[in-house]
């Protein structure tokens, strides 16, 4: 398996160590509260559910905090901002935000920071003017590379043809970065292959299915169809419908996707949203209860490639909350215990 964490240089390590011990000016201000919250972009979608679950479990690891996990059912930036603004008054102990519209959040986050509310951006880098100093997120370019690496391993190095990349939310930075990682890695591993896209495969599940059906029909000779987000279920479905020989892949870890992997219809990389949430929850809770300063920078959560080889283990892990917690606690301990490896400068600051 390819290493999921890239080695950072000495400068990064030094900066990371300094940052871990640094005092965030925002966090230092105002009286401490034990009420913390997470607000996600979608409480119905798997990634949102996992982030909330991980956050809540991570916070529980620290005694003495009141945790609220909330958000919009489906992606609704303005409404999410409104929920967040309300939380700044009721949960000043700290708020973690997962949004796919960081630009919308920037003014509200800056205002909350000035009020002394400790903030963490989850999964998506904060907008430049938000003044949020801590990001807990995957390296999405790396996730794309991992997925491309998994797919390339199934094809001969001299493979010719096209690979179609779809994204449910073009312009969403994390998804675009995954697409970038896919293209870069394919250019390296399969120079004879042309990558199309990323094309807009629509957010709505029904529209998404239609889009993939269309793309499969329009590119009947394509070697693979890859989604940057949670397209896995629809991709696997189209593959089964068309009895396609092409490869399907996505960045996902939904149960259907795992089953599709087990059935040989899909390859995937998991963004490990539960672990993401747990890391943020633990840090937020520690700060709220003990005053431990939040690190400054980007805590990188490594992705997890899922193939038929390890899918059973993942299925077992995801079968229970305890299983998820056990896995994620181990990862959280490792990540927070090794800032030299996992703490980086904020994207754009490096």
């Amino acid at each position, binding site marked *: 398996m390819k290493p999921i964490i890239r080695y950072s240089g000495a400068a990064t390590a030094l900066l990371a160590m300094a940052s871990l011990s640094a005092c965030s000016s925002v966090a230092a201000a105002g009286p401490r509260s034990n009420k913390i919250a997470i607000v996600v972009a979608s409480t119905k979608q798997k990634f949102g559910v996992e982030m909330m679950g991980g956050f809540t479990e991570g916070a529980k690891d620290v005694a003495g905090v009141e945790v609220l996990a909330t958000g919009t059912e489906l992606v609704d930036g303005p409404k999410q901002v409104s929920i967040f603004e309300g939380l700044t008054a009721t949960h000043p102990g700290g708020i973690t935000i997962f949004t796919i519209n960081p*630009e919308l959040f*920037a003014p509200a986050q800056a205002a909350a920071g000035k009020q002394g509310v400790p903030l963490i951006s989850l999964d998506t880098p904060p907008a430049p003017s938000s003044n949020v100093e801590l990001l807990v997120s995957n390296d999405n370019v790396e996730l794309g590379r991992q997925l491309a690496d998994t797919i390339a391993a199934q094809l001969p190095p001299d493979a010719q043809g096209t690979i179609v990349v779809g994204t449910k939310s*073009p312009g969403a930075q994390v998804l675009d970065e995954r697409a970038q990682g896919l293209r870069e890695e394919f250019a390296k591993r399969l120079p004879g292959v042309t990558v199309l*896209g990323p094309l807009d495969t629509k957010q709505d599940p029904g529209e998404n299915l239609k889009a993939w059906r*269309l793309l499969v029909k*329009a590119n009947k000779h394509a070697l693979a169809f890859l989604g940057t987000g949670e397209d896995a279920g629809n991709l696997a479905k189209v593959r089964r419908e068309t009895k396609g020989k092409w490869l399907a892949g996505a960045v996902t870890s939904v149960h259907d996707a795992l089953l599709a992997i087990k059935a040989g219809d899909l390859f995937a990389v998991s963004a490990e949203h539960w672990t993401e949430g747990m890391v943020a929850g633990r840090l937020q809770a520690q700060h709220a209860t003990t005053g431990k300063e939040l690190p400054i920078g980007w805590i990188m959560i490594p992705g997890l490639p899922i193939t038929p080889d390890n899918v059973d283990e993942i299925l077992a892990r995801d079968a229970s909350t305890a299983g998820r917690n056990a896995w994620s606690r181990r990862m959280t301990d490792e990540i927070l215990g090794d800032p030299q490896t996992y703490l980086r400068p904020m994207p754009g600051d490096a």
Partner: protein
Amino acid sequence: MQLGWIRRRWLTRAAAAFLILGLFALGATTLWSFAETSRAADSARRMNAMSDNWGKVSQAVSMEYETLVDYLKADDEMGRAPLSSTIGSARPVLEWLKQHSDQPGLDNLEATYDTYTTTLRELMKAQRAGDEEAVDLYAQQAELASSSLRRQSNAISSHERLALNAYLTSVEERNNKVRLAASIIGGADLAFALICTFVLLAYQRGIKRQADESRHLAAHDNLTGIPNRFLLNQRVEQSLRTAASSGGSVGLLLMDLNKFKEVNDTLGHAKGDLLLQTVAARLTEAARTCDTVARLGGDEFAVLLSDVSTPADVIAIAERLLEHLQRPAQLDGVTVDVRASIGCSIYPAFSADAGELLQHADIAMYEAKRGRLGATLYDPSTDAQIAESLGLLAEFLAALDSDQLLLHYQPKVFAATGEIAGVEALVRWQHPRRGLLLPAEFLPGIEDSDLIMPATLHILRSALSQARRWQDAGLDLPIAVNISPRCLTDPTLPEQIVALLAEYGVPPSRLTLEITENALINDPDIAVARLGQLRAHGVRISIDDFGTGYSSLSYLRTLPLDEVKIDRSFVAGMADDRSHAIVRAVAQLGQAFNLVIVAEGIEDERSRTAAAAAGCTVLQGFAIQKPVPAADLAAWATAGATV
């Protein structure tokens, strides 16, 4: 308000240094602000251009998609033609963005655009091939690509705008800080500039005050505050010019205090200074407002009368000044009798210019002092005499330095036995031009001058030296020396005489100091004190020319006397019964006080017999021996002095 602190050197230097630093900081802040504003404007322009171009990408993609829609609806080739010309319309913008933007999403967008244009070309190819199903599929894929492109470019454009806003906000925050810093620095600069201004003004005032003080000090006497010689000369010149043009007259009074040296010597310089201040104040009070009272130095003052009519007016003013001046003065509890002499001169009556005016006033003052006349107007006829007197002083000073003074000795003998009782040292001046001068020819001119003390000490030194030589030769001759009354005012006289006695090894009892009654009259208390000190050391005191002054009998009671010398006028006239009676009475009185009675002026045998008969115990005179040089006296004494 006292602002002396503001001229402290450290404050001046600190204010100037901080002002320079402040101005430098203000300049640096301004330059930095300009640079920052310029950088911000450049960045804003660049980011705006970037945002615009992202928007153009979106527009170009939309336009291509609309052309596709038209293409699909078109019935003929003409209607479908625009699509082929619009494909790739976003390419130049993307090329520009590749050169100017570091957006990581640009690669994705370009790849998607490649997919889009490829899809469109495939669509046109399928259309030309008549494959309607493929056309439809490519059209739908083109829609997905177009949607992806628009959303990517919009997101990037939105991100660029946010970045621009964030940048501008940070610039604004920095500018606010710079403005605050500039305000603080500007305020501090203003404060330092004000301090510097105050310092400069304080220095300016100080320099002006110092200049005024310097001018005043240069023209005024430090002690009394009245004009000095420099200012007097200026005003004399000015007054003479005015008088010359107007035909008026100018008077100059030159005033010298009598016995000021005695005040200084006996009461100390502090009292002397007080006396000078009192005199200056009194003169200023008494003078007219148009006159100038000046101190020329020492105890010499001058009054310039800038507008007088006649010599009588000048004398009247001088006498009025004297009247006002000559009152007892209280000097810290000590009462001093103030006396002065004033010499007056007038321009143009007797003096042709300022130099003459001053010179004539000086001559007149000398005359007034010598004759104790109070105020005297310059008389041209006394010029020669005064000049001679002044010349005498200069010559006498030279005589002291060149041993022109000689001593002759006249013996005194006991009346009863004729044996020598001692000698009186009498000074002679071996003048290089005029020959041997007797005391009467030069001493009166010397006695009123400051030369009398050195002359007296010179005579004492010579006499004691001679006494020493006589003693060494086996001739024990008590020696008498005359002391000028002025010398008694010198508080150092006793110690100087005692020191001379010790120097020559002459017992004090072998020295007799002869003083005249006048010395006692002027200031008896001081005279008694000095003589008492000398007598306490064993020096004998003799009163000379007794009977010619006030002859106060109280002297005989209060003075520490050993001897009384009856004036020669009485001895020479003893043929007259009254003179004889006086000599006898004084002799009897002296005997009563246990004093040695000396009859001087024994000119013949008859007066010698009469003096002896009247009770005089010691005789002196030409009948016994005239004053002779020391060698002759020794020869006379060793030859058998008994006469």
